[in-house]
């Protein structure tokens, strides 16, 4: 697997426990509209991602992240 594919798989695995609606998750899946997450769920999920990858996702970055593909890109970015 490429690095991105591996990150993608890990992110999607972390989404599952929060995916209460059982939505099929792809790159274009949106957190607010498709997964219907509220702000509390987002907080918990972001903390999970941050801990898993040992990174920070600032609120400024979060505002730009709408879907799963964008999140994978954001996780990949700190690796330079």
């Amino acid at each position, binding site marked *: 697997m490429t690095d991105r594919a591996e990150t993608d798989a890990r992110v999607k695995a972390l989404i599952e426990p929060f995916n209460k609606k059982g939505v099929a998750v792809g790159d274009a899946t949106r957190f607010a509209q498709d997964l219907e997450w*509220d*702000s*509390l769920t987002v*907080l918990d999920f972001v*903390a999970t991602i*941050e*801990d898993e990858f*040992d*990174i*920070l996702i*600032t*609120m*400024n970055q979060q505002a730009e992240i709408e879907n799963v593909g964008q999140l994978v890109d954001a996780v990949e970015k700190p690796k330079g």
Partner: protein
Amino acid sequence: MMTDLFSKFDALIEQREHLLSTGLTDPFNLVMERVESPTVAICNGQRTILLGTYNYMGMTFDPDVIASGKQALDDYGSGTTGSRVLNGTYAGHKACEEALKTFYAMDHAMVFSTGYQANLGIISTIAGKDDYIVLDIDSHASIYDGCALGNANIVPFRHNDVEALEKRLKRIPDGAKTLVVLEGVYSMLGDIAPLKEMVAVAKAAGAMVLVDEAHSMGFIGEHGRGVAEAHGVIDDVDFIIGTFSKSVGTVGGFCVSNHPKFEILRLVCRPYVFTASLPPSVVATAATSIGKLMHGADKRAHLWDNSQKLHAGLKALGFTLGTETPQSAIIAVIMPDLEKGAAMWDALLREGLYVNLARPPATPANMTLLRCSLCAEHSADQVDQILGMFEAAGRATGCID
């Protein structure tokens, strides 16, 4: 099609209309027709006990405070009509800052026109575009707005979670400058922060620390300096933000600090420079009140008694409260939803009791709260009456059995 920039408010307008269509009094439109004392006002023609004012120390009707305000009106007029850095600094503004420096035993004090502006001004000025602000997710709106105005990188952590704070501090990029923003008392649930641990963790990471003590000034800590004092870490706090609109009993905000370069903020802090200074009567009442708060030990003790009595009484009645034990002068009663909360609020008002109805997004975890803030001037009898009103309203609305 004409643009309507107001269409984004449609959902809120609809929710509000729905709530009011049931015949409830509008909880966000109450008028105090007359105010008799820090604890009693006339609302809708009815004598009402005030239990949602943040007037913790009851200074609003203190005779010395009122006399100093009247004197300042006579001596200096009704307003300054100017910025602090131009024609808006009078002797009273300097006296007020001296009173704060004495109260907190700190080197510098800067008075703003409101508490909101104090957070907005200090945070946005000291933390800019390349800096990081690590803050509790439940921080007050003025803190978030200060972060946004300065365009800093915002890193929130789970409410009161020391480990979550520490982890995030470790992930800040090397060389970046960091400000940790905490509150002494969180005003929604009335819980306090573990400042001893948090300040230690922040300092170990090399961050500067700002603590908002708006809801603790005057009665928490040996000298009423707040939770940071009570936890023995006030010397490690770089900036304390506070307000005159709670324990001090008027309006205005401030920052106190020992930072050697603090005074430069007066020239670079936009919410300080580009607004008119407080009226002379306001700074006079504030200075007098702050001076008296230094000797308020008996009132403080009575306020704690009130807080403990109300907390125990509400718990015994079967209400769900925001904290297991009383931690401050705020007791939050958790309502199952907004409709029940609004009904209970309305029932309490009809009984003759005013509390704050708090709702999302101001509240954590989307909770609806009836927020009670006690005053040192509430008598033990009034607290008994308050409990009786909660019991009657709670049964009438089905909030308790």
